[in-house]
């Protein structure tokens, strides 16, 4: 009997001690949430562009040679601090050029329009409506942004498993095999770099859209690229899609790419 009551006493004392030590925490909570003061909140910027699904149309008729694409690639890679690695194996690219047979490897004809065989094709992340990379990611570090359909990367969360790279049928993703910083020539100080061990890719210039600007590649494209909302019947991209025959990369895979090519 004696034994039990002592144990009970000790237990009660213990609980009381825990309760007392928790008081300051509770006080802090009360102070933080109490009173008439409003809570902080977040919201999108006032100038941000809005869309249901951002899309891009690339008018390949206006492309003559690599010279036409260079400014777009350069502007993008400069703006986003994309490093330049001499070693092809460790290459990082957000937007780059490929020959037709590599951009559309499943749609190559034996005898083709010579122009298409000759000109470079601009390729980038397709911001698929049904993205396999998002399906594969085990941490939601890559995700389809519900507000506008951009397939985004959260570099803070990426564990570097590279499942997304295996899942992407367009080779749009690059991995930081080492610290990219020493390989960035002129860095844009307003945009972060990446760290080693994370995957990266085109973000459709989410940071520019947020302040009402078009993606930088579109801005410097001299009309080759058009950007807009796929689901707005009055958008610039829809106008082009209505009047021109377009193709998308590997349509048969059902990923629903948002980048269209006028050929």
């Amino acid at each position, binding site marked *: 009997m004696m034994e039990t009551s002592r144990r009970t006493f000790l237990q009660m004392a213990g609980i009381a001690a825990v309760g007392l030590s928790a008081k300051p925490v509770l006080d802090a909570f009360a102070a933080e949430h109490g009173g008439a003061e409003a809570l902080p909140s977040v919201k999108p910027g006032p100038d941000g562009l809005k869309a249901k699904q951002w899309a891009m149309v690339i008018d390949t008729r206006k492309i003559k040679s690599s010279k036409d694409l260079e400014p777009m690639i350069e502007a993008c890679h400069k703006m986003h601090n994309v490093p330049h690695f001499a070693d*092809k*194996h*460790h*290459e*990082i690219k957000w937007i780059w050029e*490929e020959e037709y*047979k*590599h*951009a559309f*490897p*499943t749609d190559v004809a034996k005898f083709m329009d010579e122009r298409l065989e000759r000109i470079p094709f601009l390729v980038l992340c397709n911001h698929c409506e049904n993205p*396999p990379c998002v*399906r*594969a*990611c*085990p*941490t*939601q*570090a890559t995700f389809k942004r519900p507000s506008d359909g951009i397939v985004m990367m959260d570099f803070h*969360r*990426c*564990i*570097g*498993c*590279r*499942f997304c*790279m*295996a*899942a*992407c*049928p*367009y*080779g749009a993703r*690059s*991995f*930081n*095999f*080492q*610290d990219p910083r020493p390989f960035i020539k002129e860095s844009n100080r307003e945009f972060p770099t990446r760290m*080693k*061990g*994370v*995957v990266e890719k085109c973000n459709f210039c989410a940071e520019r859209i947020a302040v009402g600007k078009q993606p930088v590649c579109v801005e410097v494209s001299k009309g080759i690229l058009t950007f807009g909302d796929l689901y707005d019947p009055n958008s610039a991209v829809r106008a082009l899609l209505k009047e021109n025959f377009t193709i998308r990369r*590997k349509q048969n*895979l*059902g*990923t629903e790419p948002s980048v269209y090519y006028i050929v």
Partner: protein
Amino acid sequence: MLELAIQGSKKYFGWIIALLVVIGIAFGIYRFQLAFGLGITGMSRDVSWGFYIAQFTFLVGVAAGGVMVVTPYYLHNYKAFGKITILGEFLAISAITMCLLFITVDLGQPMRMLNVLLYPTPNSVLFWDMIVLNGYLFLNIVIGWNVLEAERNDTHYPGWVKPLIYISIPWAVGIHTVTAYLYCGLPGRGFWLTAILAPRFLASAFAAGPALLILLCLFIRKVTKFDPGTEQIQSLAKIVAYAICLNVFFFLCEVFVVFYSQIPEHMDHLKYLFVGLHGHGNLVGWMWTSMALMLVGIILMVNPFTRKNEPSLIVGCVVIFAGTWIDKGLGMISGGFVPSPLHHVTEYAPTMPEIGITLGVYAAGFLVLTLLFKMAIGVKEEVRA
């Protein structure tokens, strides 16, 4: 029971120390990889998974192979295997340990690994793979420990272990199925995009795992007082014979579908592996060697004379283990990445540091295996005495 693992001959401790040295060196290399990044490996933008993930895939098979001694004993009441189930379970534990280590060394940001738990993502196969692998490890530790302890105390293992044993059987199939799903659900990777990938993985697992177990049993018979038994080894050998035949059969099914349909995205990978593509063919020699080894294995294991003859049985098991290792540990992963989805041919070969880290993980696995087997055999010897 742990004390059994820290008593042994000079040779035993020599082996342990040798393993620790290899682990230590590999850990040093890993520190370097951690500081520099995965750039010290042979992986690239196009071949983004390499040796680590390939070894992981192969070893999931070895782990799943343990079920081939568990099922006959517990499900079909095949008494003879009672003697060696513990070896199968402990082999599975060490194989899973290696799997988890290989995944860890393959991560670009390993310190964020727990994000997988922090942001659980049911649509990702990797999330499920994490669950099944850890679950299987847990099941085998609990089951193995309790059954062995009961054997030592000459009692029956507690009743609640039985359901866990039954769960562990489909679970073993699960670990390799989910691991196959990592690959075979990806659009645009023609080599893996096949419904038969999981069955293929399982067939090769049920060949490689028991083949290794046979070799371990023969080794144990030689160096300890515990005899796993001729009947047991022969039964395992039959399992290996069936499984390796199935493995080759499944592969031939694959070859038929790919080359009769003539779909380029599917043909290119097999062409790369077996005859080379656009002048690139690093793996051609390896793949034919693998085929030859598996074929020799079939001949040695199916033929009762060579199966019952110990020296040729050993050769059979070695060639089957080596053949399936090349098939899965070299060809299966690289083959899926070459050519790339944009039809570029970028070849892959592991670098020295990468091989060093790989050996370190294997050494860690063998350390776990040695300690567990030492314990199990210690108990067996005690009970006998």
